[in-house]
């Protein structure tokens, strides 16, 4: 029973996974552009963001239509509501990829005492978090969602360390201030991306348990 609703929810979930794949690609590219100082790749990330935004709009519209016509209840309602919230988080993660790419375009060559490496490893963590948060949603795994959400603390710590390292350097040598501020921003964007992944994990926990948890 409820074949139509089930079919529509399935299409919705598949589209969400597609959107997530696109976002992951853009995270990957923006970090690569940063580490390899590749302006062309950074521009590619910026140009691609429109497609991610289009996914958000289209999924939102599908959710509204589904609520209007299918009267989803209980777990179906929680799922549709979670998807509406998750696409917002994914879209914001996409925006942060654009922000990082814009920094890449203005940065110029720089190597600031290992800061790029720190950012790169932070980026790997964030990539994994985004991937796992959506995986937890697809597999409906509360365990994975909880584990992933907890990784946010490690990302926060990395951001703190990066922040202090860069602050020290700016004190030592003011001539690099543009680069340092750029990298500080990148660190901040990555930290925000991890927060959005945490939100996605929280949505899954809400979907499965009906409880609103905050990490």
């Amino acid at each position, binding site marked *: 029973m*409820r*074949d*139509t609703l089930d079919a529509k929810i399935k299409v919705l979930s598949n589209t969400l996974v597609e959107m997530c794949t696109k976002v992951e690609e853009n995270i990957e590219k923006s970090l690569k552009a940063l580490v390899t100082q590749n302006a062309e790749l950074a521009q590619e990330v910026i140009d691609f963001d429109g497609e991610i935004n289009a996914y958000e709009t289209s999924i939102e519209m599908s959710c509204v*239509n589904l609520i*209007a*016509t*299918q*009267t989803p209840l209980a777990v179906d309602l929680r799922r549709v509501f979670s998807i509406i919230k998750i696409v917002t988080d994914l879209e914001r993660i996409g925006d942060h990829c654009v922000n990082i790419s814009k920094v890449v375009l203005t940065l110029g060559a720089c190597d600031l005492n290992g800061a790029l490496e720190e950012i790169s490893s932070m980026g790997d963590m964030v990539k994994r978090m985004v991937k796992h948060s959506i995986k937890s949603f697809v597999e409906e795994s509360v365990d994975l969602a909880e584990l992933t959400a907890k990784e946010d603390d490690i990302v926060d710590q990395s951001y703190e360390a990066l922040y202090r390292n860069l602050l020290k350097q700016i004190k030592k040598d003011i001539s690099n201030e543009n680069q340092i501020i750029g990298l500080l921003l990148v660190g901040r964007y990555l930290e925000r991306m991890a927060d959005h992944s945490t939100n996605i994990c929280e949505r899954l926990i809400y979907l499965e348990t009906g409880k609103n948890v905050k990490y």
Partner: protein
Amino acid sequence: METKNSVKFKIENMDFHYGDFQALKNINLEIKENEITALIGPSGCGKSTFLRSLNRMNDLIENTKVDGSITLDGVDIYKDYDVIDLRLRVGMVFQKPNPFPMSIYDNIAYGPRLNGIRKKSVLDKIVEKSLRAAAIWDEVKDDLKKNALALSGGQQQRICIARTLAVEPEVILMDEPTSALDPIATLKIEDLINELKKDYTIVIVTHNMQQAGRISDKTAFFLMGELIEFSETDKLFSNPENKKTEDYITGRFG
């Protein structure tokens, strides 16, 4: 999204009178093939009259008059059709399940027999095919001689749908087919209707707005004999064009 399905029924400038009372005013509407079209509106809005005019059930009521035109695959059903032929192509399922007081088998074989089919092997095939298509075969296959009136309401309604399918119509008209059924039986019929869409064109009158939302591709909203709005169901239920539609579907009507 406008679908590419071809037009099955085309209704142009249609008026309908019961004596002096005008029940439908200048209706213009296209019903597409292999789509589910839902008709909604408050009691007395004309939606059932409209539905019944599609296979000329209103002919049975004295002193009625139809103006304008209704064509089925381009042929005017009020001018160029024998009403028996029309009803073979355009079947109907009613509000209350109304199986004939006879066995399940005979209910389904009734129409084909009227059409002159006598051979048992052919009838057997038609009965099985129709019951399968109406998603009730598995429940009744071992008991085809049982009186259809002994079945539950939901089962009876699926028997009536099977009976309609047995004469292989192209269009199925449904007049509140689930209003006498419980929620589970209702959802079963809804899934069935959705399944039938692949092979048939379906027009359904429903008082249950959520049902129209759940099953239909297009929805027509009638009010006091006028067609107020006709559009994609997604659109009509999430962002209707007309204030009257908005008021009705949000329960702020009257």
